[in-house]
């Protein structure tokens, strides 16, 4: 399992990385591995706001459909529309090409409360 050192993590297997004033969001390598081949993603709209832990989109793989949650409150600034046509990127490169949305956090300090890469690795091992 790959873990991206610059990102922070949620218990729901999502990552969040700082990029200037914004945050980038995606699913972890472990999540894509568990889902197996992803065939579809339903993205939120730019401008939509979500509270912490709210469902922001849905991914479908050949064996399951899963809700994705935004771990910290924020407003969507950019969505990765190319994923609609090439959802397989979520499997092949979940931390870079497979980013899902960029958002503005309601309180950027919330990011510090997410799991560190080490904490996340421990969590996955325990599972």
């Amino acid at each position, binding site marked *: 399992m790959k873990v991206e050192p610059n990102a922070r993590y949620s218990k729901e297997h999502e990552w969040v990385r700082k990029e200037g004033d914004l945050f980038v969001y995606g699913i972890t390598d472990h999540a894509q591995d568990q889902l197996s081949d992803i065939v*579809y993603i339903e993205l939120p709209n730019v401008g939509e706001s979500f509270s912490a832990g709210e469902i922001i989109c*849905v991914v479908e*793989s050949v064996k399951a459909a899963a809700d994705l949650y935004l771990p910290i409150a924020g407003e969507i600034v950019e969505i990765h529309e190319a994923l609609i046509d090439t959802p397989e990127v979520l499997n092949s490169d979940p931390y870079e090409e497979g980013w899902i949305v960029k958002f503005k956090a309601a309180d950027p300090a919330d990011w510090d409360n997410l799991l560190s890469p080490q904490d996340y690795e421990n969590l996955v091992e325990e599972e």
Partner: protein
Amino acid sequence: MPYIPNTKANQKEMLAAIGISAMKDLFNDVPEAYRYPELKLPKAASEIEILDELYRIALKNSTTGCFATFLGAGAYNHFVPSVIPSLAGRGEFLTAYTPYQPEVSQGTLQAIFEYQSMVAELTGMEVVNASHYDGATSMAEAAIMSVNVSNYKRRKIVVSPSIHPQYRETLRTYLPGKQVEIGGDEDHAVGLVELKGMLDGDTACLIVQNPTFFGELLDVDGLADAVHSCGALLVVVTNPITSLGLFKPPGEYGADIVVAEGQPFGAGLNFGGPYLGVFAARQKLVRKMPGRLVGETTDTEGRRGYVLTLSTREQHIRREKATSNICTNQGLIALMAAMYLAYMGKSGLRSVAEMCYHKAHYAAGEIDKLDGFSVLAERPFFNEFVVQCPQPVAEINASLLESGILGGYDLQKDYPDRKNQMLVSVTELNTRQQIDHLVDTLGSIGSVQ
């Protein structure tokens, strides 16, 4: 041997758990007089006697073949070619449960795929599901889908009053748990202009019927644009027989979801069911579409095959977030529709539609000439039209029945302001003689006035 696995001790324990002392206390809510009625059954009869009695009872029934039928209003007396019951009745197809497993059901799956493909062509839409129970449930599913497409941000459904009243009733029965507001049809005089005015940012969809319940064709110019400009979907309830060739199919005037009663496609009247819920949508909405969907694929050796596809929308995978709680289809009737469409072909279906249209217009023209009767058709119509009668429709229908005619639908039942108005339906099965007989009989009723 009655198979009741629990012991006396088990039963006692269960009764104690729910706080009663004896099994018979479970029936306390049934009035005592009805609890253990004495059945006054006649003495056992022989098979010969039973068959004789049943035959005499069956003679009291009348079927459409006994009358000249002018009753439609959602269920139509179309011709069912003999090939359909004879093929659909084969043991390979005639099962109570539709088998979807690809390894054993290629025939059924291919038939559904063909049904979907032909209906897509007829409606002018891109995707068609494997079908629902009937036209009314298809319409209710379309409303739910529209709300789903908006991710539950839009919860208003605007419905035209010229949609079949039973469809609107089904919609309201189907949706109470969804916190959805349904309106638009409270005032029966409301038309497209007023309906467009009701659309707003909370509107998930506008539902119209075309041809309407009264048989008229809507002026659909600009309708889809008006609906889409406020971010809602256009749902069209249609009669699938009208679409091919004769009139523009809903897909061509911008419908996002098309639903229909598929009964005219070779299903027969069947005393009111089973019928067939046709459901079609735009490709971009397929992930939100309810119901089963059959797709064409290839196996590991490159051979063509058919499988259920996009099942992640469905309840067995997505649980409470599924697009619908329908995990089945109306398999046998969809199969019959596929057979009907394949058997009739493009030109056959078109000639059915043309016969319906021309015979209905001949009937309307003749009825309109009668004293006391007038045809109320402000817009072009297909095979149904409204007749203003000189007396209550129930009385007229009673007289018609005596002359071997099953009269039209009494509109006053659902639309109190439509006093003495009869909805008359004409299909390819109505002969010139039948129509002339109807006109003569109506004429003699009118002249008695």
